[in-house]
């Protein structure tokens, strides 16, 4: 388990306890956060769970795979160097404190 902090598009921070093995996306969906759509439910088919990973976490995450890199080219909001798809970020205890920010729009 790890605590993950999500920054909503309006700037509000929400911290959730996420079980190991679950994705940053699925916990955000279950909690009903505003800044995420995740229409495909984590199948990397829609690019609507886009988030910006805050320092210093980006380099502590496994790098995006080929599919994720391709999907990231097509996110609705601005793509930045710290853009990731939250469905591909799998929580483990070492990620305690991970902070991600949702963009202003997902589709």
């Amino acid at each position, binding site marked *: 388990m790890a605590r993950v902090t999500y920054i909503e598009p309006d700037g509000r921070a929400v911290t959730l306890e996420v079980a190991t093995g679950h994705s940053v996306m699925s916990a955000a*969906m*279950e909690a*009903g956060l505003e800044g995420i759509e995740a229409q495909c439910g984590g199948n990397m088919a829609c690019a609507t769970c886009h988030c910006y990973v805050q320092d210093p976490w980006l380099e502590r995450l496994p790098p995006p795979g080929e599919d994720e890199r391709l999907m990231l080219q097509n996110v609705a909001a601005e793509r930045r160097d710290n853009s990731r798809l939250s469905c591909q970020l799998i929580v483990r205890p070492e990620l305690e404190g991970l902070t991600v920010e949702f963009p202003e729009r997902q589709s």
Partner: protein
Amino acid sequence: MSSHAPIIIVGAGQAGVQIAESLRQEGYGGELLLIGEEPHPPYQRPPLSKKWLFDAGNPVSLAIRGAEALARRRIELKLEARVERLDRGSTTLELASGERLSYSRVALATGSLPRVLPVPGATLQGVLCLRGIADSAAIAAAIRRCASEQRPVVVIGGGFIGLEVAAGARKLGAAVTVLEGLPRLMSRVTAPIVSEAFEQLHRSHGVQFVFDAQVTELRGTREGHVAMVRTADGREFAAGCVVVGIGVTPDDRLAAEAGLPCERGIIVDECSRTADPMIVAAGDCTARRLADGRLLRLESVQNAVEQGKSAAAALMGRERPFYATPWFWSDQYDVKLQMAGLSQGYDQVIVRGDVAKPAFSAFYLRAGRLIAVDSLNRIPDHMLAKRLLDNDLSPTAEQIADAGFDLHSLVRQSA
């Protein structure tokens, strides 16, 4: 009708939860009741035939929303409740328990039901179809049993569900035969070149196919468990279990019995309104009337979400029509199929990419204009296709056929 009575949403799936949440976003402050038949809070169905089916050790969360998140938005969730009747005269819903609930307005999001095989033996034990979590769990258990007892899994239907289950069964180590009634796979929605790529893919993983197979009968053991599938040409296929994936029927029962116009689906307009101003409908249970009079039935998450948003707006007296390009996906082994647009009625198919790998896209044109794109392991093509179709842009056949032509340039030009 009491204006203090709640808005009641029948069906706690993707469309139902979307209607509820969108109503709150639209500013509805009254009571809101979301009724579901299953014991689970709203969850995603697509993984049930994919990862969730074969990957039990991996905690894939299916939740769309937890009960807490709904409670925070004052969305009351009533689970394991079946609505038997919609009485428009008294504006009440009658539950199977006998309870009657008054409504101010109703949203129907009842989804679809798997088509039942219309042959003798279809109700034997071990004959399974997929709708909910319990079905997926039963299918996974039956496949595991087949794998350990070395008995074959017979899948009836070579569409999305049948093929995804076949792939899952191979991953679980069971022998699989797919019986398809038509001459090729997914023939209703894809071109032959896509069907052939998937046939090849499944064959390379050891799946056996029988095409033009008309199933006439399922036979059971003395204990009533399915043991064999017979086809019209007299062939017999031993079966440890049978998974039936021959399509779905929109669940329009409540609406039809209440006298609302239905035609294999509750007929709605582009704003998800039914013929009754107090009633909207969204998702798989609908048949949407298009401007040209045709009825469009879509079974997809996107449609459930977008129609759900439209339905909520309509309940608040606002028009929010939805015209976005339909899209779908399927995962089979290591191939991701992504479809944008509707290819029915195409007169030309042009391929970009490597068919053998497979990593290619089939571009469908009608009268020289792009109408749909199926992409196999070609994610950028799919994302581009959605943009082209959303913006009514079409490359020419020559541009598509020219591998050196950058199709993205069309989007950039129009931006």
